[in-house]
């Protein structure tokens, strides 16, 4: 009994420590103060300021745009790659798996500067002054995220019944039709989890963004980095943290609900 209490306390104590910085920001978003630790009475002034802050709203729009576009590109490229690699010969498989592995284990700063060197090189060939922009940023994020789509889709391909594709062809389906109506539905859960992982990675990224963007294009990461350089975190970002935390909680509830749903279905 005592052991159980100690064990559980340890879990919740570490959890509390982990969430303490976030809770602190959330608590002090409900008072109109610049400094954390100074409570000026309850107010929603900071939230009002957040919704009037055009710069932050623009930054959020940019962040989401980059995440969605790069994740769509990554998911398509990665899913096709996973299918292709799965049906490749031994040598090609080894080569492509190796390439994927490089991107996964490589340090982000190395990936980032390698892309900078490449883009500068291309710009010098094409004689363009500033090559960095939305396209280079998307390429950077695709390089970062595409391996994770492959890693999520491949296990689903391995679980699939290998005869189904052949059966579809025998029944007169064209290869592209067989791909669309036989393989894709089977591996869809892997594609979805790969896509969601891409979104999270892209929203979270700082280093590759900093090196591949045009300097006037701010995402949440680069914006926060910029303001923390000057001093403390502006209080509007505390209010933003509350919203991000609420979205997180919502996602957690959905996951919890879904897994319970599955368990019930299994029992039934």
């Amino acid at each position: 009994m005592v052991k159980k209490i100690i064990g559980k306390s340890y879990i919740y104590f570490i959890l509390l420590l982990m969430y303490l910085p976030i809770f602190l920001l959330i608590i002090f978003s409900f008072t109109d103060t610049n400094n954390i630790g100074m409570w000026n009475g309850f107010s929603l002034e900071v939230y009002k300021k957040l919704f009037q802050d055009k710069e932050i709203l623009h930054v959020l729009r940019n962040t989401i745009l980059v995440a969605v576009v790069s994740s769509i590109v990554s998911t398509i490229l990665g899913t096709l790659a996973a299918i292709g690699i799965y049906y490749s010969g031994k040598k090609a498989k080894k080569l492509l798996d190796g390439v994927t592995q490089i991107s996964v284990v490589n340090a982000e700063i190395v990936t980032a500067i390698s892309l900078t060197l490449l883009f500068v090189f291309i710009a010098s060939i094409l004689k363009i002054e500033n090559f960095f922009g939305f396209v280079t940023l998307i390429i950077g994020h695709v390089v970062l995220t595409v391996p994770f789509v492959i890693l999520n889709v491949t296990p689903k391909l391995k679980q699939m019944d290998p005869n189904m594709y052949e059966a579809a062809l025998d029944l007169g389906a064209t290869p592209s039709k067989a791909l669309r109506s036989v393989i894709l539905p089977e591996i869809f859960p892997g594609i979805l989890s790969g896509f969601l992982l891409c979104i999270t990675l892209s929203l979270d990224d700082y280093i590759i963004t900093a090196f591949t963007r045009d300097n006037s294009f701010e995402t949440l990461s680069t914006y926060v980095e910029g303001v923390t350089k000057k001093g403390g975190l502006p209080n509007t970002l505390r209010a933003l943290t509350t919203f991000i935390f609420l979205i997180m909680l919502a996602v957690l509830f959905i996951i919890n609900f879904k897994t319970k749903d599955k368990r019930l279905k299994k029992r039934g």
Partner: protein
Amino acid sequence: MLLTKFRFKRKYLSIPYLLFSIFFVIAPLLLIVYYAFTDKNGHFSFTNLQEFFSSSGNFSVLVVSILIGEANTIICLLIGYPIAMLLAKKKYNKSYVTVLLFIMPMWINFVLRTAATRELLRWIGIDGGKYPYVATIIGMVYNYLPFVILPLYSTMLKMDKNQIEASYDLGANKVQTFFKTIIPMTMPGIVSAATMVFMPTMSSYVISDIMGERNITLIGNLINLNFEQGLWNIGSFYALIILALIGLSVVLFKDVEKAGDARGGLW
């Protein structure tokens, strides 16, 4: 004629990815090698190598990076290992939601999260200006703890419980069982957790910049600083060193993981 001859094969679907990787993964890495071994004018030279090994400042950056990387890895493992163990035991935790709660901070933007940690530390009096090392290591632990808990948790779920029973039956006490049975069985998880923390700690520069108020220089900071100043050749040489270290750890990691598997099978 060519078009009619073309027959679709599923393996062709990986061609776009292959081309993308050649262009945006392989070619850029080759450019790093090229820049690392040339001087400003593009002539082949070893000046970057000489500069790296002749300056004691660079050497101390490497040492500090390794020390902070090790400190972070050890602290994360010491906190995370018991957590993963407790989470994997039905007695202490029955729901997957608790596991998710440990991973959830990763969904908050990484820079915002780090800035939040800085606000907390400032509030309780640990100022990065005064205590840059303490603040940086705390910031690192905050960021990397989830990466340690997750692989450890999944290896512990797969752990063979009969072996622990057997260890007790054969007369081992709790401490002996822990060090001789549980630790070896979870070795692959420990190794993968350590590699997920150690190299990124050394090469990241954002946490040390924000938490240490720019008083700490890690290899990552050095690369970033050199690139900010347009010193691409020397910056590329540092990147090459990181690449070499990563390559080394991948090779070591493979061996240890195999050893861990083998041991798990043997006992």
